[in-house]
């Protein structure tokens, strides 16, 4: 090796050392990955060329890589040919009388139907066909709101992209740890970080070899970022620095799904309005509130009963052992327990609609006496009519919820609010773990099923007996498709859906916080991490006698206490917060705008108000974030495809007016419904 070759090699190795130190300091997880990556390295070949020498043998010339990347950068310049993710709203599908459709009856307002419809109607009026529209979204020449780069490659392309384009959010995804390690020889990551800072680009660097984990890495990074609106996924540009098309497509799908999940998971104002009204009703009734943890001595047993298909075979166990465990009936499981002559100790509900009262009454064939002997636990958003059906009722304040945030501000201990998401069995399990049940048996908590089409126990017959046009039936039959295949609890595979998969993850998440508690899964459904699979035939031999049912129940109930809130003050505070929020949005949208860049700034700022970590506990952020994001998303779609830049600005202005109208109408609805809840 000549002195020059040696010097070049030394320089590359020094770069790698500097980058390692940089990652150690700023991205420790990435530093860890670097250390664990295969030890491929750069070297000089016998012909004197700079090469990559792979750990398992073989080598590749680096010059080839540079030329390839240059070609790709050139291709990327052409907007028409540039790969993009397209996630259009249909901006022309307005209706004359917007409603929530079949579930309209469950709401107290229909603003979430009305205002997006207004935006669509407006778009359709001015753009009845595609003549004044682009075929693909563009936000200005060289302006890329979200660029997703697949592969860190040798790193050259990233600073090139950063300097050529005005990129607001740059997500680099590397699934090949070895490639990432090699990039540290070539790419000055310190310089890259500084460049991103200088260009005001939010740089998200994800190194994750498992494609299905990219979603969570991305979500985590987004929540920490400076406001990457999920709807930027539409029209996001893609740069491929890897050759594996299949893998890139897989990643692309995962990203799209993650961002849209985040987008649709943000809730609706119309739902939050129900929560506000019901919470005020419940506060006026002064139900005891969950205010204590760990009130039960260590050996109490809980049976958490859901209405999954396995329940049918597990009923005999509940019948045989029910007198030695505290039984939690979750949602529609009460109908099965009633039919089987089992009286639960607790019934648990988490859903908002007032129709739940009717569901519960019909579930027990109108046998109100049966309900009087049961204790009830409901989230604050549950209709007070449901609380009133039971002999004793206690309320759990919901986390990540408008009214939860308001109540915490009014003195509710923040550590006593509960997520209880996404299903009612999650709420029951979370409660049971928190008050100290340390042996929890899951019945009918399948989290999926062996047969794709089956969701519920066949004993939930009363639903089938309802006429097709029955609104209640329509509500109860809303079920996502079991399209995900996961490991089965007793081996093999099970079919599940997004909600149940999330539910399963949440059980695992809460179980991790209670390492002394054991959760036994008796269901022939999906496997739940951290839950112990327990075939029903082994139940008897695994059974351990716990604290007496009566004592356990009393200890569980003692976690609830009365706490009075000044509801007038809470109402005033809530409305003051809403007014302040609207004023902030108004100040942003009425600011002068002269370019699409200004519009994107406004959108990002509003998104930041509703979604950033700094505002995650704000009542208004929770109240409005879903609805605001939906309206902004439509604006974002429209502005990207309107050909004339002046019209693009004008459309945004119209949409911003629509957004303000929505917020003012929402404020009026909120004041009205809170008053109704209080009186």
């Amino acid at each position, binding site marked *: 090796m000549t002195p020059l070759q040696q010097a070049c090699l030394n320089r590359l190795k020094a770069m790698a050392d500097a980058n390692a130190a940089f990652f150690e300091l700023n991205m420790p997880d990435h530093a860890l990955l670097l250390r664990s990556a295969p030890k491929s390295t750069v070297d000089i070949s016998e012909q004197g060329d700079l090469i990559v020498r792979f750990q398992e043998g073989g080598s590749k010339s680096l010059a080839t890589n540079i030329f390839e990347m240059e070609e790709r950068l050139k291709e990327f310049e052409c907007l028409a040919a540039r790969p993009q993710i397209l996630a259009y709203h249909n901006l022309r599908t307005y209706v004359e009388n917007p409603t929530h459709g079949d579930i309209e009856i469950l709401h107290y307002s229909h603003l979430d139907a009305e205002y997006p419809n207004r935006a669509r109607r407006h778009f359709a009026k001015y753009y009845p066909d595609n003549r004044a529209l682009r075929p693909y979204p563009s936000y200005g020449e060289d302006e890329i709101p979200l660029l997703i780069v697949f592969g860190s490659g040798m790193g050259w392309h990233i600073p090139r992209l950063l300097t050529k384009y005005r990129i607001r959010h740059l997500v680099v995804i590397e699934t090949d740890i070895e490639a990432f390690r090699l990039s540290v020889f070539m790419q000055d990551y310190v310089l890259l970080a500084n460049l991103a800072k200088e260009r005001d680009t939010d740089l998200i660097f994800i190194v994750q070899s498992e494609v299905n984990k990219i979603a969570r890495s991305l979500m985590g990074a987004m929540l920490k970022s400076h406001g990457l609106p999920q709807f930027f996924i539409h029209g996001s540009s893609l740069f491929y620095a890897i050759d594996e098309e299949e893998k890139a497509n897989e990643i692309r799908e995962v990203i799209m799904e993650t961002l849209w999940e985040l987008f649709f998971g943000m809730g609706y104002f119309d739902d939050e309005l129900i929560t506000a009204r019901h919470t005020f009703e419940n506060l006026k009734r002064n139900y005891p509130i969950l205010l204590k943890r760990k009130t039960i001595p260590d050996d109490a047993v809980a049976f958490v009963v859901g209405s999954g298909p396995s329940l049918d075979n597990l009923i005999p166990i509940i019948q045989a052992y029910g007198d030695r465990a505290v039984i939690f009936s979750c949602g529609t499981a009460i109908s099965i327990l009633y039919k089987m002559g089992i009286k639960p100790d607790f019934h648990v509900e988490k859903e908002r609609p007032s129709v739940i009262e009717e569901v519960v009454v019909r579930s027990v064939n109108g046998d109100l006496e049966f309900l009087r002997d049961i204790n009830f636990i409901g989230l604050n958003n549950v209709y007070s009519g449901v609380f009133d059906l039971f002999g004793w009722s206690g309320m759990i304040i919901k986390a990540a919820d408008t009214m939860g945030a308001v109540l915490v501000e009014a003195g509710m201990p923040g550590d006593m609010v509960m997520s209880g998401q996404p299903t009612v069995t999650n709420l029951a399990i979370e409660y049971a773990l928190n008050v100290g049940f340390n042996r929890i048996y899951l019945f009918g908590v399948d989290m999926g099923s062996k047969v794709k089409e089956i969701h519920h126990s066949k004993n939930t017959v009363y639903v089938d007996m309802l006429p097709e046009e029955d609104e209640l039936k329509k509500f109860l039959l809303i079920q996502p498709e079991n399209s995900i295949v996961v490991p089965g609890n007793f081996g093999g595979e099970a079919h599940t859906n997004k909600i149940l998969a999330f539910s399963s993850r949440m059980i695992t998440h809460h179980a991790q916080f209670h390492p002394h508690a054991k959760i036994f899964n008796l269901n022939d459904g999906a496997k739940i991490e951290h839950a112990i699979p327990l075939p029903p035939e082994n139940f008897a031999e695994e059974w351990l006698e716990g604290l007496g049912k009566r004592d356990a129940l009393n200890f569980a109930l003692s976690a609830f206490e009365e706490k009075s809130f000044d509801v007038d003050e809470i109402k005033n505070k809530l409305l003051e917060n809403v007014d302040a929020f609207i004023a902030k949005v108004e100040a942003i949208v009425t600011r002068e705008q002269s370019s699409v860049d200004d519009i994107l700034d406004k959108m990002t700022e509003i998104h930041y108000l509703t979604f950033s970590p700094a505002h995650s506990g704000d009542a208004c952020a929770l109240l409005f974030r879903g609805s605001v994001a939906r309206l902004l998303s439509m604006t974002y779609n429209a502005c990207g495809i309107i050909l004339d830049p002046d019209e693009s600005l004008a459309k945004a202005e*119209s949409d911003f007016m629509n957004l303000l109208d929505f917020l003012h109408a929402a404020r009026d609805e909120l004041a009205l419904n809170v008053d109704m809840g209080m009186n």
Partner: protein
Amino acid sequence: MILRVDPLQKIRLQKRVEQAHQDMVSGNLVDAESSFKEILLETPDYSEAMHGLGVLYLAQGKYDVAEPWLRKAVEAEPENPVNWNDLGELLRSIGRIDEAVEAYKRAIDLAPEMTAVINNLAVGLAGQGKTEEAKAYFYKAIDIDPNDPHPYNNLGVLLENVGESDEALICYEKAVMSKYDFGEAKQNYVDLLQRHPDKLLESMGRLLKEAKTYLK
């Protein structure tokens, strides 16, 4: 109640009006006229189209047709100074100076720094024989925008008329220096020097000095 105009509708109307004005400037008067009329058929209260139609007829010397449109424009959008100014222009063109001055004053109330309107008002006042007042407005226009040649030129004419030919000559010089292709100002300058050839050297000296400063 505040009437809200849809920004998208507004921008589309504005673009059509702009196009009609361009047609007017390039001599496509028929196209311009039909564009303005079409806009008014669709949006009868759109003042910019009324104004456009008024200006179109004014430019063609059809004063009797222009006046109702310009009056409609000021009625529809009384807060727009351009509407008042152009109504003033029409009235001055047909010799109704007093009314023109009133119209210019309304425009200035709305846009006190708009030099074109101040200049027009000054011309109107000069027409009424209010020389000192007119001078004051010309100077005001010059103060606001010393690079606008029109107030210099008009002030020059006024000063020449009252016998202040030295000052008038300086005004013409300034007008021409601000806009070298300002034909009217050039003509006024040449005419004055023909009447007063003795001022030529003095004027050339000033222009030369100015040119040297410029070159430096």
